[in-house]
């Protein structure tokens, strides 16, 4: 009875054509775990749903020479079953796998989680810390963007009319490098992150941190890349002192809100705690790689 249309393009080109023709009234359906909730709540403006899951490129994981390409609509369960990516980027997989229940895992995707524009999206800090990029298709062809440049604020992205994310690229993990994602929720499952923290770091031969990226979720209007937290451990052996500095820098970067999920004070403090704990796990993983 509604005027809502549905289309299920089979190619990227076809999808771009439909999205462009819809004049901004189309919504992209990947896993649907956010979209359908919005649809049910009557919060979905739009007249067309474009299901991109039948485009092969969006559903495949490819090992490339210098990394992995992951289709934007690959589900958490599918990514979780991919051994090589689990080994190379456990922090990224942890993030996507933490979204919702087993049932949600059957559907939720990296593309959907990113483009929903939530500052608390679990999979985004891991991608940002990993230095992941995404391939975007649109009326003007393909372009590539850093993941941290996509979300602008709650529900807002830098995607232009007719554009959608096709895939993510994760570089090959350097030697002596590791990552980890931790989030805080009040229960053990089923909650939206109150704070999320991801750390990716690389050690040199003597165990000094040569590179690091720290990303925080749910503590600002968008997921953050916190350079100061990273520089707190770069050039150190990631000892307690450095970790304390990282923790303080992470807390200092927070600009959270009070809401039903947490308070400003709480989020600020726990961001530091989780950043330190994630860095510790990443460090252990780096030492093992």
């Amino acid at each position, binding site marked *: *009875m*509604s*005027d*809502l*249309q*549905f289309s*299920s393009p089979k190619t990227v080109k076809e999808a771009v054509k439909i999205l462009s023709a819809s004049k901004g009234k189309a919504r992209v*359906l990947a*896993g*649907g*775990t956010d979209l*359908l*909730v919005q*649809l*049910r709540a009557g919060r979905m403006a739009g007249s067309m*749903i474009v*299901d991109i*899951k039948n485009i092969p490129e969006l559903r495949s994981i490819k090992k490339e020479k210098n990394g992995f390409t992951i289709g934007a609509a690959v*589900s958490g*369960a599918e990514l979780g079953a991919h051994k090589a990516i689990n080994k190379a980027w456990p922090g990224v997989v942890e993030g996507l796998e933490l979204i*919702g*229940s*087993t*049932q*949600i895992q*059957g*559907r939720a995707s990296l593309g959907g989680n990113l483009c929903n524009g939530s500052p608390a999206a679990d999979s985004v800090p891991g991608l940002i810390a990993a230095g992941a990029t995404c391939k975007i298709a649109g009326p003007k062809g393909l372009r590539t963007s850093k993941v941290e440049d996509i979300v602008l604020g709650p529900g807002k992205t830098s995607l232009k009319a007719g554009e959608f994310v096709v895939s993510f690229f994760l570089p090959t993990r350097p030697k002596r490098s590791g990552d980890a994602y931790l989030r805080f929720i009040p229960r*053990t*499952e*089923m909650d939206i992150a109150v704070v999320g923290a991801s750390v990716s770091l690389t050690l040199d031969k003597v165990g000094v941190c040569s590179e690091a990226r720290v990303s925080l979720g749910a503590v600002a209007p968008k997921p953050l890349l916190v350079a100061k937290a990273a520089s707190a451990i770069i050039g150190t052996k990631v000892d307690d002192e450095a970790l304390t500095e990282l923790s303080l820098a992470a807390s200092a970067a927070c600009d959270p809100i009070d809401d039903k999920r947490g308070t400003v004070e709480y989020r600020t403090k726990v961001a530091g705690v989780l950043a330190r704990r994630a860095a510790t796990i990443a460090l252990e993983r780096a030492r093992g790689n």
Partner: protein
Amino acid sequence: MAKYHVKTTINGDPAEFLCGTEQTVLDCLRDELGLTGSKEGCSSGDCGACSITLDGRLVCACLVLGVETEGKDIETIEGVADGDDLHPIQKHFLQEAALQCGICTPGFIVAAKALLAENPNPTETETRYWLAGNLCRCTGYDKIVTAVMNAAAEMRGE
């Protein structure tokens, strides 16, 4: 407005239905096909009472559009027993009194079946995390977890 004609397989049998874009597969199962075993507790993927499998993958039927299931294989609670023969999980739910009101039971059984298909020997912790998306407000989960683990043991031949 036009409805979409969707052809699927449900519990092994071909099934066709008409649905509007906004209808979820849960709406289609319950309202169009009369399969009311899958329950609607929240319509937001938070309670798991509508758990089904889609091409073997456990999902919430309330978070899948009917139109998305074209050509897909759907399994619901109605397909878990083989005629009169209850599945071991169903038997253990009865034996262990793993249900009180019973509204969450279909979702739990479908989810538990998916768990044991992937992991025939789950620990208590694995069982609890796998089933975290299925809410039960009556039992406190104790007897549900016991039933699933006992069913797993039986299915392993122990």
